[in-house]
């Protein structure tokens, strides 16, 4: 009997369990899936929760409901991964052995990385929405917020779902308008990058959105600290941004088990082959989703496309065949632009988001263009996620590798 072990039952790990259980003979391969949580969170829902648009039962389900039969779910905290021994220790004292290991331990927010971010005003006037607790606390804060300086902040790259803070800003504009208090709110977006949009095509097409909505932009801002006493963000170059409500995206890092195991970089992300998804250090170890160090977005769509390539590669690896160098960084996502509209983007390692058409099961959607249809698509995606994506089903009309952009697109 051989052992395939998957660490992490989030989007990526759950998809891999579903893909591989269908393809590995049950008489020869035992499969186990480890996670510290028994609850599966639909993370895109965290963007909407603070505005009261989603309720928790819509975005939290039982992890076991998505674990296929024939895969043992191990509810435990990971201790240490020991690739030299082909073992993984658990915090409960057990040790699991494996022939093939898939690491899908994701990433976490690390507010402790920035001086002054945690402290007596954390979740009083300093909030985040990347965790369920954070999104809940922010929902309470926003429901009673009557006006003032709202600052939406990205601390450092890379962050999970890198456009989410900008979407949050657009949705906040709509939220305050609906509440009738937009005139009493200043909305500022603070980024360490050179702009809210950094790719030329998106910047040209979408750059007007911030000005149109009266959103101030502060760029090239790397926060040295949060000054809780005076309610302001302080940049290394001395610039200051005062706030009444700070909605921050703290530094994102890989799981602490990766650091304990000595497998990560500065941010605890694992060195991974960008096209095969094999660990660069250990041939029997594969990595996907947010846990990798790849220059692809940390997003569910990326994990989905990776899972299709990785399922093939795990089978090839087991059979001693060369791996497919197939994954191209393909990513696509809906981007909420406020006022009930959204954009759809599609890109990979090589191609920046571009204009054009997009084949999709419920109608032709336009890329890089605001529309009501895209917003509805984003809302509908929750059902796609629970019913198709987690189960490792192909999404109709969307291939794992990116189609080249149309030549006409400029």
């Amino acid at each position, binding site marked *: 009997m051989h052992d395939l072990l998957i660490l992490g039952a989030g989007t990526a790990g759950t998809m891999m369990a579903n893909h591989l259980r269908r393809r590995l003979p049950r008489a020869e391969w035992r499969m186990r899936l480890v996670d510290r949580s028994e609850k599966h969170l639909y993370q895109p829902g965290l963007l909407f929760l603070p505005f009261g648009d989603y309720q928790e039962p819509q975005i939290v389900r039982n992890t076991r409901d998505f674990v296929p039969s024939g895969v043992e779910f191990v509810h435990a905290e990971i201790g240490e991964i020991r690739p030299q021994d082909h073992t993984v220790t658990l915090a409960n004292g057990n040790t699991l052995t494996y022939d093939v290991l898939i690491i899908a331990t994701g990433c976490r927010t690390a507010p402790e990385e920035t001086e002054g971010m945690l402290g007596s005003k954390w979740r009083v006037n300093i909030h985040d929405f990347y965790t369920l607790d954070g999104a809940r606390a922010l929902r309470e804060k926003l429901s009673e917020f009557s006006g003032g300086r709202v600052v939406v902040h990205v601390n450092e790259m890379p962050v999970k779902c890198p*456009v989410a803070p900008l979407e949050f800003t657009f949705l906040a504009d709509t939220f305050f308008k609906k509440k009738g208090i937009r005139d009493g709110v200043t909305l500022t977006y603070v*980024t360490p990058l050179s702009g809210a949009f950094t790719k030329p095509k*998106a910047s040209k097409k979408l750059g007007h959105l911030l000005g149109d909505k009266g959103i101030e932009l502060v760029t090239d801002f790397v926060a040295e600290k949060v000054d809780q006493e005076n309610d302001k963000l302080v940049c*290394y170059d001395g610039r200051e941004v005062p706030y009444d409500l700070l909605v921050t995206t703290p530094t994102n890092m890989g799981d602490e088990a990766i650091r304990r195991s000595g497998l990560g*970089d500065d941010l605890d992300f694992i060195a991974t082959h960008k096209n095969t998804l094999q660990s660069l250090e250990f041939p029997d170890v594969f990595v996907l989703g947010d846990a990798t160090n790849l220059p692809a977005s940390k997003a569910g769509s990326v994990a989905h496309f990776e899972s299709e390539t990785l399922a093939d590669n795990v089978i090839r690896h087991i059979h001693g065949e060369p791996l497919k160098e197939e994954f191209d960084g393909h990513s696509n996502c809906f981007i909420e632009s406020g006022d009930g509209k959204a954009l759809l*983007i599609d890109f990979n390692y090589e191609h920046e988001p571009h204009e054009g058409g997009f084949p999709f099961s419920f109608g032709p959607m336009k890329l890089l263009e605001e529309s009501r249809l895209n917003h509805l698509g984003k809302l509908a995606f929750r059902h796609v996620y629970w019913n198709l994506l987690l189960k490792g089903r192909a999404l109709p009309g969307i291939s794992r590798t990116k189609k080249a952009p149309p030549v006409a697109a400029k």
Partner: protein
Amino acid sequence: MTKNIAESEIDVNEEGYLTDMTQWNEAVAEAIAAEEGVGPLGEGHWKVIRYLREQQEKGAALTIRSMGKSGVVTTKELYELFPGGPLKKSSKIAGIPKPVGCI
């Protein structure tokens, strides 16, 4: 597109970042630095530039954090050396792509 930098035709993108890092040399760096209002380039600048090029060749992601931790330069010094936009300006001068988000 190409641009004449330090008397050579250099391939650049629409924002002036080199698209082929092998076309870079120290004279190119000096010329871009002058355009960006940085410099004259001293040893502090060159340490950062060399580090960036080494990391880029390795295919590593460039972050302010990794630079800070590398011991090459602190984040504060980076802002002093490349005022206004340490990562975007140092990358441009080093002849490597601009750090970007996904859109």
